[in-house]
Structure formats: structure tokens, C-alpha cells
């Protein structure tokens, strides 16, 4: 793929995009191989609860059998739990890695689903036009009028909160932007000569859609997908934060939710997943904007 190499070359000139890409690659690798090197995120150990991260110390009240009551002790971070532990002594590093898996899974799958649905609806709406266009676009308009998060909460409330269902519902509600983008691009593409020429040589509708129309919108789709991954990740975190996430998995939102009660005693429990969310979201945004500039034919080469 000479074209891919060309765009990569253009992307390289954009520092923030490269930083974003580097962080995403780091996150993906950590999520993939991290669990083999860390303890189980669900392993409870009450003797090591609320340990601060390395380099920090905190005052903790602890029940002492000698005194027969609570005493204040000064706890220090240990290398065994470099990012500290939560109120049940569970290792936060391994929880965060598990959370990275969940976030990336949600981000990629939900966005993928949304993009596929949106692209199909958008391209068929524009290509077939007429009544099909009106029906599909009014349906899209109706979808847009629903408040996204409320719709998610409703679905999760009605059908339960497994991770698969959360991914499915984020995907099924998040395709409207893609549909509109792909439709508008297809509207201008379908009158281009190469599409008409291909029709004149007997290409079928499917062939035109998959060979001419969609590939020509792919750069916009990639940019939009990259920019909507953070939305999906944040939606899952928001659901988990308000307690509607999948209780079976340690997602960043779940950890945040658990940590908010202990904010005074153990600030790191809530802060760490927050930082991870922040960097993940901003990395995808940097990368997305870098890609948009790289794909922009008017953009400078340097």
C-alpha cells in the first residue's frame, strides 16, 4: 500500500499525533501482555488495604489488637503494589490494566459497530436517494434527538448491564454522525465521472458502493472513528461511574466509582483511573486530528 506509506509519512510530521499514537500503542501493549505480569485484580488482601502509590505516604487508621482500638499509622507505597491498593487491598496497577482492556474493547468494538452501521445507512441513503433517503435520514434525525446517555441508561436499565450489552448499545446509538458524514460525501461522489463510467461498464450497485463510494470516504471514516473512540470510552466510564456498568469487570469507571467514597483516605484510587481516562481520551483526539490533517489534501506536507 503505497498510499498508506504516504499518509504515514505525512502523519510523522505532526508531533502531538505521534505522541498520541505512542501512548495508544503503549496502552494496547499493556492491555495485551500486562495481565501476565501482575497479580489478579480481584485478589483481596485486607492487611494491605489502602496502600498509597510508590513515593507517597498517607495516614491510615487501623484496628490494633494491642491497643484494642483504632490507631493512626503512616503507610508507605511498596514495590509490590507500585500504584497502591484500594480499600480491600486489591492491586490498583492490575486493576488499571484490566480497565485498559475494557476501555479499549469498548472503544474499538462500539465505534466499529457504529461506523459499520453509519456507513451502510449513509451510503445507501445517498446512493439510492428518493424515498429511501428520506426514510433513512428522518430515522437518523429521530435517533439524534434522543439524549445519548439517557438512552444508554434506559437500555442498560431494561436489559441488564453486561459488558457485551454496553458495547452493543453504545454502537447502536452512536452511528448517526457517521451516517450523515458518509451520506454527504457519497452525495458528491456519486455524480463523479468515475462512478457514472463504472455504471456505463455494467457495474452493479453493490460493486459501485464497495469499490468506488466507500473506499473514497475511508479517510473521513478513519478520522471520525478515531475521534469517536474517546466518546465510547467515556460513555462506558460514565455508565460505570453512576453504577450501571458491568460489575463483573474492573473498568476505569468502576474503579472511579469505588474510589469516590474514599477520596479523603485514599485519593489515588479515584485519581489514577481518572488520569488514565484523561490521557487515553486526549491521545485518541490528538491522533484523530493528526490523521485529519494528514488526509487533508490541502494540508502542507511539512
Amino acid at each position, binding site marked *: 500500500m503505497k*498510499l498508506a506509506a504516504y499518509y504515514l509519512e505525512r502523519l510523522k510530521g505532526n508531533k502531538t499525533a505521534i505522541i498520541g499514537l505512542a501512548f495508544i500503542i503503549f496502552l494496547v501493549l499493556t492491555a495485551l501482555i500486562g495481565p501476565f505480569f501482575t497479580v489478579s485484580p480481584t485478589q483481596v488482601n485486607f492487611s494491605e488495604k489502602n496502600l498509597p502509590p510508590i513515593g507517597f505516604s498517607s495516614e491510615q487508621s487501623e484496628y490494633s489488637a494491642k491497643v484494642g482500638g483504632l490507631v493512626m499509622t503512616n503507610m508507605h507505597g511498596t514495590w509490590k503494589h507500585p500504584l497502591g491498593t484500594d480499600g480491600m487491598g486489591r492491586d490498583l496497577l492490575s486493576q488499571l490494566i484490566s480497565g485498559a482492556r475494557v476501555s479499549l474493547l469498548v472503544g474499538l468494538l462500539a465505534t466499529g459497530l457504529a461506523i459499520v452501521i453509519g456507513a451502510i445507512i449513509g451510503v445507501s441513503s445517498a446512493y439510492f436517494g428518493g424515498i429511501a433517503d428520506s426514510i433513512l435520514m428522518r430515522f437518523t434525525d429521530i435517533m439524534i434527538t434522543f439524549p445519548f446517555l439517557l438512552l444508554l441508561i434506559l437500555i442498560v436499565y431494561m436489559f441488564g448491564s453486561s459488558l457485551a450489552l454496553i458495547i452493543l448499545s453504545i454502537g447502536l446509538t452512536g452511528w448517526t454522525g457517521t451516517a450523515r458524514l458518509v451520506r454527504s460525501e457519497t452525495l458528491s461522489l456519486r455524480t*463523479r465521472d468515475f462512478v*457514472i*463510467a463504472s455504471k456505463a*461498464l*455494467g457495474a452493479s450497485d453493490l460493486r459501485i458502493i464497495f*469499490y468506488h463510494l466507500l*473506499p473514497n470516504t475511508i479517510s473521513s471514516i478513519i478520522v471520525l472513528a478515531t475521534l469517536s473512540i474517546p466518546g465510547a470510552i467515556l460513555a462506558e466510564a460514565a455508565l460505570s461511574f453512576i453504577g450501571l456498568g458491568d460489575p463483573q469487570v474492573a473498568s476505569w469507571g468502576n474503579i472511579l466509582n469505588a474510589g469516590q467514597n474514599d477520596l479523603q483516605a485514599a485519593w489515588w484510587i479515584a485519581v489514577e483511573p481518572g488520569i488514565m481516562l484523561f490521557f487515553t481520551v486526549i491521545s485518541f483526539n490528538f491522533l484523530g486530528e493528526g490523521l485529519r490533517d494528514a488526509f487533508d489534501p490541502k494540508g502542507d506536507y511539512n
Partner: protein
Amino acid sequence: MTSEIILSIENLKTYFFTKKGIVRAVDNISFDIRKGEILCIVGESGSGKTVTALSILRLVESPGKIIEGKIILDEDNLLELSPHKMQDVRGNKIAMVFQDPHSALNPIFTIGDQVSEAISAHKSCNKEDASSQATQLLELVGIPLAKERYHDYPHQFSGGMKQRVVIAMALACHPRVLIADEPATALDLTVQAQILDLFLELRARFEMSIIYITHDLGVVSEIADSIVVMYAGRIMEKGGSRDVLGNPVHPYTKGLMGCLPSEKGIIIPIPGTIPGLINPPAGCIFHPRCVNALDICRMERPPMTKITDEHYVSCFLGGVNG
């Protein structure tokens, strides 16, 4: 010219139903094309040449519609075929080359890819077969170093080379009729000449019939076997190339000839412009610009009058040199 008739267009009417009214873009035209013949459709911009071509392929888009007529290819009326069968005719039996080679190729695929895609649109063959056939086609239309250039993108080609690629795509399934809609207009004069040579060569090699649409009488005189002169959606004059160019009967044809520089370098333009097609003038559509117009020209539409067996004109002054 006695070879068999391959494609026959009878009383074709294609109208566009716009909000302002009905545009009679193609209004009751008939002509035949024979095997191995190059037929030129000549006319100014807006005379319905391209709509005629798109009608033959049934690619007229809404609000345009083919109202009536017959387009007969191999005893089938194309206008009665199912959409699926029509799709099979396109590319397989009739193919088309468009005016602007710069936009007729998909910018994101290599040219080899696009030619083999055109092949596999109709023939079920594996990728290697398609790609070797594509290379052969590219060689046939005169792309130098076809094998190496197979993997190049359209933007790496010049206009003339792109048009050769477009022609290669049109030839992919060896169509019997090739419609070329001003294929050389967007190109340099020297490249134009090369493309014309290519068409002549293809005709000789495959006995293909070519409908060549142009407004350039110079091109017509070089390649046409027969000529259809169109004006405002109607045929003014049609016949063999020698008859029409050597003995033009219709005032419009004469006017077109007057637009070519004469030996003395004098150009005589036709006065006026092409009329609006929503409310066309009554009678002969050319009468407002015609220097010889009679009263009857303003009242009645002139019928096709036979001058010789191969030469017809739609003018009341038929045969009268006035």
C-alpha cells in the same frame, strides 16, 4: 456501407421533467449504426448528444426519463430489458468512454486494479487471469511499459494516457458498440490525434462499431463513416460522411461548415443561440436562426426527407440549394 445494422434507435424521446417545465432534450430521433462503422453525432453544446448516449445505455438520471422509442440491439429492445439484463448489456455489448479522463478514473486505486475490476465485472475469472488480461489491454491501447505502470495511480498519468486507460476499461469485455462522448475534447491537439488513431485502429482490429460524439467537424471529417447532425434535441441531417460533408443540405449543417475556417480564413458564424428547450419555437426548431426560413418553417415540423438512399434531411428546403 452494406454491412448489417447492429444498433438501431427508433423515435427516441428523452424528456427532463423539471420544475420549470418539460425539457425535450432528445425529441424523436432515429438512426442506425452498422457493424464496424464509425458514426459521428455532431452538434453544439446542449443539442442532446450526451443525453442520446446516456439514453442508449439507459443511464439517464431523474428527472430525466425516456418517454418512448426503441433501441434495438440484437433484436432486443433495450428499453424493455429488466434492469439486471440491462446491466449485463452495459460493458458487455455497449461500453462508453467519457469526456474528461481526469475524473473518469477512481483516484484511490491503481490503474491496473481498475482495468481488471472492469474485466471481473462481467467475467468470472480469478485475480491472476484478470490482471494478465488487464496488462494485455493496457498494451493494446498503447500504454508504454504496461507491466510496470500497472501499479501506478491515475494522478501519475497524463491526460492522454488516462484516456487510454479509460478506453482499455471500456474494451474490457470486447463490446460490439463503443460510445465515445467527446473523448478527445479535454486533451491537447497532438494527443487528440493519437486518440483518434487509436479509435481507428480498434475499429479495424475488432470490427467494433463506434458512436463518436463531438462538436468538432475537423474530427468528424477525419474519422466518420456516417454523420448525424443534431440541433436542440432533434436530428437535422443524417447520412454518409461524404454526402453530409460534401453536399450539406440543411442550413444548420451548412452553418456549421461555415464555422470552419475556409481557405481564405473566413469564419461565418451562425447568428443567434440554441433555443431554450422548455418552450421551443414552433415548427422547425432551427427557424429563428435560419436565413432561409419560410412561413411553413414557423408552423410545421419538417419531416425527414430522403435525398439519396443514405442521406436524409429534416428541412422543407430539402434538396433546394438556397
